[in-house]
């Protein structure tokens, strides 16, 4: 028979394992029996945009006595988000607020949650079949794209070649953004809109796209990115090509690093979503739904254009993405 | 354990003969017309200093390499081995120094490695193992050669060096039909384990399989081998019958010091 040697390493590990389980036991938090339980499931936990939504939701929850739990996966992956929804469903929250990572894959598990009695509010992205949700809060994505196009037209004087970088088709927010962007672009006959390029907030990819675009179109006058994450790649590529002044870059989203880029003149304007308001409203809608009241099916918050002129005004400053 | 006194050499006594085999690797001539004889039912030691050509000869006979020229005869038939599989199919097994055991498998699994027994009927057809039969036959094989395996279910990696050697030799002996080559079987073993392996070699011979013992250890060779053949610089330079020769003579032949014994042509060295 083998004798078991309890080595120091073994002991440390056992402690760690038991420790994390004890953590699981302790961190259930205090349940305020009078307040409602709402779980917020983010698109990813690593994006400032979702952190801003979370901040708005947290502040509102404190005001209204809601017990808010926040969950999310580290990556934008429906295969990772579905198990989270399943587990959250088991906790039977009064309401679930979620930014779905896929408009089809998340339907079944969310439906199960709704059947189980939880109310559903969709924030940011939406389901193809949103009938199971009390309501959806997003930005006016068509306006989002339109404003982006407007800014580029203004900056370029209505002339030149323009490139738009969006997430691949299938993400409802981006699809609508492209519609708005194209429609506005069509108003300027002096501008040539290149075929859309696709990147989902991946700096490396967007950098490569811009490199190629600059090579193929030396007269490139303007670039618009829908997703904040792509902004980094565009700025880098423009800087490397020494084209930061020549090419007018308008960037969607208002993450902290984007604000820095704006201040440094590498980005000419930001199109900012009212993320905190989204978070705040989602709690209000969740409470209304729980109380059985009507909630608007679709709420599209207008986006706000931010530039060096208006950066400090409350309308813009309050909506810059930041955790709290 | 004993040394047989085989005096007369007739052709029918020889199970394996090697005549005038040559092998070069580029400009290096490893074998320059080497000869080698193995008789039925004997233990013959193949000795020689480093570079004498022992391992090359063994590789050729095991089918790992092909000779440039020469004739190899097995059981009266001329043979050429294009691969180790052919050598094994012809009835020659080799146990190299690394033992070629699968350390995470048990002794029965190792015995039947590559030759697994299947169940009868349909199940066997689709590949189901007959573990019970393999265990049983393994037990019998080990018993017949008096190899003790401490635990049937234990992975052979957990067993001692001596037991592992015993299993490797027993495996080769089980499948060999004519000749078994052992490459430095006692090199890594202690005294008691060495004695066990030497006893095992005798038992293998007694079961009718000739054993070719490649070894640097003169004491081992003097103890267990019936005859000794010495290679030097790619040729056989001496054949001894163990009982008739002294250790010094053998050493001298290996190192090439003063003339000792006779070479194949019957000439004094």
């Amino acid at each position, binding site marked *: 028979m083998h004798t078991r040697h309890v080595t120091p390493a073994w002991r440390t590990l056992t402690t760690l*394992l038991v420790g994390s389980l004890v953590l699981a036991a302790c961190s259930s938090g205090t349940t305020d029996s009078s307040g409602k339980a709402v779980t917020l499931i983010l698109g990813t936990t690593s994006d400032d945009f979702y952190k801003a939504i979370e901040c708005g939701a947290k502040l509102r929850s404190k005001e209204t006595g809601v017990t808010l739990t926040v969950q*999310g996966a*580290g990556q934008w*992956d429906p295969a990772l988000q579905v198990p989270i929804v399943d587990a959250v469903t088991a906790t039977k929250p009064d309401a679930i607020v979620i930014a779905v990572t*896929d408009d089809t894959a998340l339907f079944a598990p969310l439906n199960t949650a709704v059947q189980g009695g939880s109310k559903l509010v969709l924030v940011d992205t939406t389901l193809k079949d949103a009938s199971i949700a009390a309501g959806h809060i997003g930005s006016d994505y068509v306006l989002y794209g339109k404003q982006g196009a407007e800014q580029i037209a203004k900056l370029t004087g209505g002339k030149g070649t323009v490139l738009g970088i969006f997430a691949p088709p299938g993400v409802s927010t981006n699809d609508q953004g492209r519609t708005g962007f194209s429609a506005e672009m069509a108003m300027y006959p002096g501008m040539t809109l290149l075929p859309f390029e696709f990147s989902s907030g991946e700096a490396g990819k967007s950098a490569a796209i811009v490199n190629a675009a600059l090579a193929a179109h030396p007269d490139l006058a303007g670039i618009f990115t829908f997703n904040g994450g792509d902004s980094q790649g565009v700025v880098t590529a423009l800087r490397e090509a020494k084209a930061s002044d020549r090419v007018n870059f308008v960037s969607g989203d208002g993450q902290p690093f984007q604000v820095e880029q704006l201040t440094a003149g590498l980005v000419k304007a930001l199109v900012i979503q009212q993320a905190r308001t989204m978070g705040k409203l989602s709690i209000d809608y969740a409470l209304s739904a729980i109380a059985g009241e009507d909630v608007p099916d679709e709420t599209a918050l207008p986006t706000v254009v931010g530039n060096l002129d208006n950066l400090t005004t409350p309308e813009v400053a309050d909506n810059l993405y930041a955790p709290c | 354990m004993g040394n047989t006194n085989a005096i007369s050499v007739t052709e029918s006594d020889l199970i394996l003969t090697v005549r005038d085999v040559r092998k070069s690797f580029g400009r290096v001539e490893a074998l320059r017309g080497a000869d080698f004889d193995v008789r039925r039912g004997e233990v013959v030691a193949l000795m020689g200093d480093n570079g004498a050509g022992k391992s090359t000869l063994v590789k050729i006979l095991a089918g790992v390499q092909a000779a440039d020229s020469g004739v190899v005869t097995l059981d009266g038939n001329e043979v050429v081995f294009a691969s180790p599989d052919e050598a094994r199919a012809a009835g020659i097994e080799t146990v190299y120094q690394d033992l070629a055991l699968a350390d*995470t498998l048990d002794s029965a699994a190792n015995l039947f490695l590559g*030759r697994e027994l299947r169940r009868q009927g349909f199940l066997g057809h689709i590949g189901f193992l007959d573990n019970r039969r393999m265990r049983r036959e393994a037990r019998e094989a080990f018993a017949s050669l008096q190899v003790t395996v401490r635990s049937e279910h234990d992975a052979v990696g957990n067993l001692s060096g001596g037991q592992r050697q015993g299993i490797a030799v027993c495996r080769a002996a089980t499948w060999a039909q004519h000749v078994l080559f052992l490459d430095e079987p006692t090199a890594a073993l202690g005294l008691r384990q060495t004695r066990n392996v030497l006893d095992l070699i005798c038992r293998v011979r007694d079961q009718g399989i000739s054993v070719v013992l490649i070894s640097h250890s003169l004491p081992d060779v003097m103890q267990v081998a019936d005859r000794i053949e010495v290679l030097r610089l790619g040729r056989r330079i001496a054949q001894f019958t163990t009982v008739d020769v002294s250790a010094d003579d053998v050493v001298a032949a290996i190192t090439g010091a003063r003339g000792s014994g006779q070479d194949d042509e019957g000439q004094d060295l």
Partner: protein
Amino acid sequence: MNAKLASWLTRPTTTMLLVLVGIIAIFAALSPTTFFTLANGQGILSNVAILLVVAVGATFVIITAGIDLSVGSVLVFSSVLGAKAMTAIGGDSLPAILSGLLVTIVAGGAWGVLNGVLVAKAKVPSFVVTLGTLGAAYGLALVISGGVDVRSVPTPLVEFGNGRWLGIPVIFSIAALITVIAGIALALTVFGRRTYAIGSNEESARRSGIRVERHLIKVYALAGALAGFGGFLSLARFGTTTIAGNNTLNLQVITAVVIGGTSLFGGIGWMFGTTIGVFIPVVLANGFIIRGVVPYWQYVAVGTVLITAVLLDQRRRLRQLS
């Protein structure tokens, strides 16, 4: 039979089984009405299914002392090809669904064969080979799909993928069946025995007459085919391809296999262990969410269990060498 029982008790897998039972017991005690419910159990089984199917294939590969990093990409590629096939044949008919099944398995198997040939014949380390096919399969999936998820999966298939038999999610039952068959093959057939032999000592296996190259190709092909089938199950469950996802599937699968007691050094492993290994991270994540633990601690917990499993394996190996 005492020796056999003893060898079972000291297996790392047994420790992991106790860990799993312990985790379930703790969460059940802490959250009896939310964790320990039929609905939550069904959810866990659904989330285990695809991971399990892919982990079965990975078990064979890892036992041969190899590794397959391409499984996530192969799954995505196969699901794209399968979805395209089903759309091409059109409609909700059975031929369409069966064509999807065939295409996903063959597509996955083809990548597996490529992996196997490069590993076995070209003698490129499996880590490097599968890293390459990881990129290639993903890239081809993007090329074929244009970067757009294919969302037209036949409705009957989606109903099937989300359905239940006798209270158990169908995809889990299928995964369990595959696991049992594969486990039996691994433990009781010549194919399984030779898989262990090659992982234990490839040279020894070769010298024993085992056609090592051919066997390795079969093993990698099996892993690829199972990843492809995982793609089919994914289509059935989600009703869409998930091109952007499955990035960490390869690591999740390897973690599960290693937690289950299979050694990364080859020659040792059990399908039963893989099953436990798949459940532990899924149950941990589920329980943590139910307890409201900050998501990041889940990674810490899974990492701890993985390190424990590897250390146990190390101890077992050192015992062998002494």
